[in-house]
């Protein structure tokens, strides 16, 4: 039985998406893979069982059998923290060991969603290096390269994992960083015996939200084009300037939502003339009929909300701030990008071959 831990150097590196992609790709290849997440940090209760939200979603999406309390045996909670701090120890480590043992007996291979950085879970003895030893696993490390920097985390992981470090995947790399990653980072890591398994470029679609998600989050009323609520919004802009400036700035951003007051017909029309996916009208001020007609004609939903512009901006920032994996369209896209950027067969052979 072979085990692969997918861990990351920092939170929000896209680990869960890659785990899901990998599980699906294994299933396509007829490999009976199990999924295990030793330590969950997004507590949620599913059917009365306390578990991790991402783990529950991945298990369902990847058609993984098994009880959720086995798949993710330890979930961060206030009680857990208090117990550990009071008693200096918990049963976490033994729970993980026995759950893993149970699951691994039922599967050909195991994909383990590991910690979000090298230190996470250390207090419980569930940090990456400890888990790799415990499960006799190899590790695929996911890293994001936001900026030109030294690969401290990766080198540190290599120090403690040694040959268990199967490779690094650079995820969500902006196009402008590709040359740096391939030209400077990759050769250096390879000289340090850290193979680079692949480089996945960033994709604005993954951090997009649908208009209907916006409507729901903002508690809005759709005034026009309600057939187009599933279109995706990648960013938003606030319209408080004059029409000429609005037009110039709006042109620079595609697939956006525009937040403005219902009384700003000029801004609304400027938004409609550019690539805009929805217009959010704040302060419960309905738009002019002529503008509404134009929005309907162009198929752009206008959403009336009661909150002021500042509150709407805050909501939108939260909404667009991170990739929400729980969307089949996005999971498909991640799998597609993963399979393009990484030699999946080679990875499977290295991780799970004899």
């Amino acid at each position: 039985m072979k085990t692969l831990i997918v861990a990351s150097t920092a939170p929000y590196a896209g680990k869960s998406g890659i785990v899901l992609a990998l599980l699906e790709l294994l299933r396509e290849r007829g490999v009976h893979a199990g999924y295990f997440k030793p330590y969950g940090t997004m507590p949620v209760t599913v059917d009365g069982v306390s578990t991790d939200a991402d783990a529950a979603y991945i298990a369902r999406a990847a058609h993984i059998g098994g009880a959720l309390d086995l798949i993710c045996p330890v979930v961060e909670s206030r009680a857990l923290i208090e117990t550990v701090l009071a008693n200096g120890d918990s049963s976490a480590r033994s729970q993980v060991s026995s759950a893993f043992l149970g699951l691994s007996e039922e599967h050909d291979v195991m994909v383990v969603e590991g910690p979000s950085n090298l230190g996470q879970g250390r207090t419980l003895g569930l940090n990456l290096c400890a888990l790799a030893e415990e499960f006799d696993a190899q590790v695929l490390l996911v890293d994001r390269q936001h900026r030109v920097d030294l690969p401290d985390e990766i080198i540190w992981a290599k120090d403690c994992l040694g040959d268990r470090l199967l490779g690094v995947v650079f995820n969500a790399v902006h196009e402008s960083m590709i040359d740096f990653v391939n030209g400077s980072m990759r050769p250096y890591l390879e000289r340090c015996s850290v193979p680079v398994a692949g480089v996945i470029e960033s994709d604005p679609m993954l951090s997009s939200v649908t208009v209907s998600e916006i409507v729901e989050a903002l508690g809005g009323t759709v005034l026009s084009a309600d057939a187009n609520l599933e279109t995706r919004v990648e960013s938003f802009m606030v319209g408080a300037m004059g029409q000429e400036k609005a037009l110039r700035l709006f042109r620079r951003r595609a697939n956006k939502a525009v937040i403005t007051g219902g009384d700003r017909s000029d801004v609304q029309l400027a938004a409609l003339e550019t690539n805009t996916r929805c217009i959010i009208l704040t302060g419960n001020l309905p738009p002019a009929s002529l503008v509404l007609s134009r929005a309907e004609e162009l198929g752009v939903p206008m959403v009336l909300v009661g909150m002021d512009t500042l509150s709407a901006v805050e909501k939108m920032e939260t909404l667009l701030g991170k990739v929400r994996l729980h969307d089949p369209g996005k999971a498909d896209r991640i799998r597609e990008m993963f399979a393009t950027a990484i030699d999946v067969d080679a990875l499977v052979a290295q991780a799970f071959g004899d």
Partner: protein
Amino acid sequence: MLEGFFQPSAIAVVGVARSEGKVGHFVFDNLLDAGYPGTVYPVNPRANEIHGHRCYPDIASLPEVPELAVIVVPAPAVADIIDECGVAGITSVIVISAGFKESGPAGGALERDVLARASAHGIRLLGPNCLGLIATESQLNASFAGTMPPTGHIAFMSQSGALGTAILDWAGSEDLGLSHFVSLGNRADLSEADLLSAWADDESVKVIVAYLESVASGTAFLEAASRVTRHKPVIALKSGGSDAGARAVSSHTGSLAGSEAAYDAAFHRTGVMRAHTVQELFDLATALSRQPLPAGQGVAILTNAGGPAVLATDACERAGIALASLENDTLERLRATLPDAAALYNPVDILGDAEPERYGAALDALYLDPNIRAVLVILTPQAMTDPSSTARLLADRVSKTSITTIASFMGGHSVAEARTILRDGDIPVYAFPEQAVAVLGAMGSYSRHLERPDITPPTFERDRDTVARLIADAHSKRHTFITEESASTIATAYGISVPRGFVAQDLASAHAFAKDIGYPVVAKISSPDILHKSDIGGIAVGIDTPQELANAYETILGKARSYAPDAVIDGLHIQEMLQGKREVIVGVNRDMQFGPLVMFGLGGVYVEVLKDVTFRLAPLDQPEAREMISEIRGFRLLAGSRGQKPADLDAIADVLVRISTLVSDFPEIVELDINPLMVGDSGEGAIAADIRIGIGGQE
């Protein structure tokens, strides 16, 4: 064109209400009252007769096919009536009914349906949501405006029906003759461009005036207006120039008011005169419908009062109107007839006791002067003044000359009759001299437009393929701005000089590039997300040594990182240090209606604080570009002042022409800035030190 609307053989009014006070009833009554000679058929399935006229249940049962149908039924019923019209063979339809896109999405859908059906039948449609139209020569009042204006030669279109009714009413009281009035309504089909074209060919129209809040199609307007103004003057009152006004236009018409600079540039390009008030619109219209254009520069002011003449002179100077210098012969003639106290030099003051004959004699002398192309006659009512007789005498003299003559008879009751006499004699008359001067100014600029040849963009060698490839490449990467390296390549492809430069992604290559270019160099942050490099300390100039370069490398990247942590940094642009003497800027912004709008101004504080810039629509030719350059207030700084050598104006003009060609060739370019363009002395050329090209956000 559009004869079916203005001279229809017969008319059907669909939706004539039985009860008075309804719009349909008004329209029918107005058609009858105006004396329209053809047959008017009321159509209403629920009435047998209206005012003794037999009423028909539908279009199909009419005894003949009318050329024009006026529809006044509720909005949801209009589409079916259009079908009836189409089946019967009616080709011109006015939809007066409201309840279309101005009422919301449901109405918008009705309007699209109506337009689709009209197009399918080959019907031209005016409206919906309009007041209708009036053609005075055909005695046609197919509107619900109560007043039929006097017959005249001014054709008036209005995007506001209500402003239209007010002006029709006013025209009646001012005895202002109109040939046509058209209320444009929602402009589902017919728009200002169609009317311009139709009126271009109409002999009864001498002047076209328009009240517009926006244009339906910029290209159609430019095309039609350029053609029409070659034959007859067009005056537009375009509202929505202020921010608040623009907002009001957006709610009123459902379209953007558009950029003021773009409208000014469009009017300049097409020769459309722009009025800024309703008063100015009709001041100018009456002058152009009554008097010939001045055949050149040179205005004489003839007055019986000193003060008003000084006011007029001031106004002339402000408007850039040259007062004529009088020939010696003219002075002799004036001296022979005028009292000794009279002021002979222009303005010619014939004194407060001037009787009509003195006006006549002075005017005779002025008309003979070859330097004079227009005369402004000022009269104030004084003890000895006989305004009416003076007016009669003027009318007689003016009827015998081709020199433009306009009048300002100041005062109230005592000049009222005189004003009527002047109007009847086709002499435009204004209450105040400044109004008259404004009119002369506009007439002068229209004359100059007529003398100006059409723009002929020069053809020059250019590498379009390279530009197309770089734009496609940026599109595929979803870039909003072309990278600086590519922008330089694009400029070079269009023959614009750029400094030598490379983008270094690390310090080692920065050193190598700097060595290759030769110190001193300039280092600039290269990032599509940082548009105002100097604002964040993203530029270092005059770097003389490798150590300075290393320092600049750290400082600039550090500042960029702290100013814009999320910005994508391509590297550091290492550039040749230019030794230019002057900085100017060239900008382009693609206007939604009129396409690329080219801006020119002096760099730095002149553009940012003083807004000393000028605009034209692309494409430009060399003369138009030179005119642009000379228009800015700071022109003398370029032309050479206080012993400085003049700048290379030809090189600036050349860059303007080339950039205007580039943005015309590639509609993908939505904005462009060369800031600065470094300009040497005459003959030394100009180099685009920094060029930024925006292609908008892509899906």
